[in-house]
């Protein structure tokens, strides 16, 4: 039976390279996908990917698997790093450690589980009206604020806010249904 994330993090703290390699194999594809989607630059995406796992190697002791989800934390870090690079913004020091607590009640430790979530998220996004989906993607993958989305799409600010709120409500409902499927 494959080792759990918590067990692998514990081994990384004890400087076990094989544990780092195992976590890399488990999550590198997931992180590479979001990094490439945001940056559209394979080389930059790979630099950040390597850096994230090196950060995990150096700071594993600061991560408490009991408090949050490792893949959730990795995704938050990956998105923040990529958006910061895209928008030439340097995140404040320590910001990432505060984001340690990411509750993600999905099992992502196996490729099958990741594929199932991938299918459900895609399904949930595709079920949104086109304008809502576009707004969510501009916010998540390009790091845009309400005003920036309004400026990009040419829609009134109020419309953008309503659109995103409705999209979030729908996604939340669909993902909660995913969680009940998983548990």
């Amino acid at each position, binding site marked *: 039976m494959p080792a759990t994330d918590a067990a692998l993090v514990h081994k990384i703290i004890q400087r076990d390279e094989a544990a780092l*390699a195992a976590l890399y194999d488990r999550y590198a594809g997931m992180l590479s996908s979001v990094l490439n989607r945001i940056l559209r630059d394979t080389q930059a995406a*790979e630099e950040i990917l390597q850096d994230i796992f090196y950060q995990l190697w150096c700071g594993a002791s600061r991560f408490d698997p009991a408090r949050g989800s490792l893949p959730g934390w990795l995704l938050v870090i990956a998105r923040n790093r990529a958006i910061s690079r895209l928008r030439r913004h340097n995140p404040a020091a320590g910001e990432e450690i505060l984001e340690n607590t990411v*509750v993600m009640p999905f099992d992502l430790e196996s490729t099958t589980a990741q594929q199932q979530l991938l299918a459900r998220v895609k399904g949930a996004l595709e079920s949104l009206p086109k304008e809502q989906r576009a707004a969510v993607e501009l916010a998540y993958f390009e790091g845009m604020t309400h005003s920036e989305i309004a400026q990009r799409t040419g829609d009134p600010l109020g419309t953008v806010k309503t659109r995103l709120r409705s999209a*979030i409500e729908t996604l939340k409902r669909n993902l909660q249904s995913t969680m009940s499927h998983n548990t």
Partner: protein
Amino acid sequence: MTNGHPTREEDFDLYVLGTLEGDEKLAIESHLAGCADCARKLAAARGRVAAISFAAPRVEPSAAVKDRLLRQVRAESQAPSRAISESAKVPARGNGREFAPPEPPRGLAGRWLFAILAPACVALLIATVILWRENSRLEKQLADLGTSIDKAERQLADAQEMLHLYTSKDTIKVALAPKPGMVKGDGEVMYNEKMGLLMYDGWIAPSPDDKSYQLWVVPMDGKPISAGVFNPATSDTAHWMARVPEGIAPKMFAITLEPAGGMPQPTGPMVLVGGT
């Protein structure tokens, strides 16, 4: 907000998503700092929002990234431990007595001895400070060299992969030509099915702001596989290497115009295309 709490749970998601601005953002930030209940809701929102990542088309990193990571980790393990070098500077017991200046010894012989040893101690102290500074400078140089070596190793790994792709008898070359009525462009794909490696080189007019170009491997059987998203906003040339699953026999390669950032499957018109 009620008692400062956000009234709607979506506020947490919107905050995490980064769309809130100005007063809306400040209100939630100032409240979150001291509310454990809302901090829990925020953690859950982070997880929900992070799941949107799964909407991105799957892109596997090249094998070189893992190699570089493990080399970086090994290099760190082999380097002298910072902790050890730091501990060497710190006295074994931190009671302060180790740093107390020695009292001058009493008696004539003692005073002579002190007169000789005191300047020697001062000289030793100065030498220690100079050596410590030199050591810091060398440590910095070593760190800079390490970064340069890491960068060079990355370039070497990429070059080796490229060389392998160029020299392998299993590599095929496919020219991509523009579809009638589409933007002008020209490209070439080198593809090695066994290595699962592809290199694209070409030029094409920049895409509109809200669009990206996306290269696809169209297999004999099954759905197209994304091999890179690009937007030559500053230059009309593009060149990159991409990894795709090994063992995919291609029927054709195509570049389509997609919404910015690309799509899991082609949705837009084909711009350049080439068959095997």
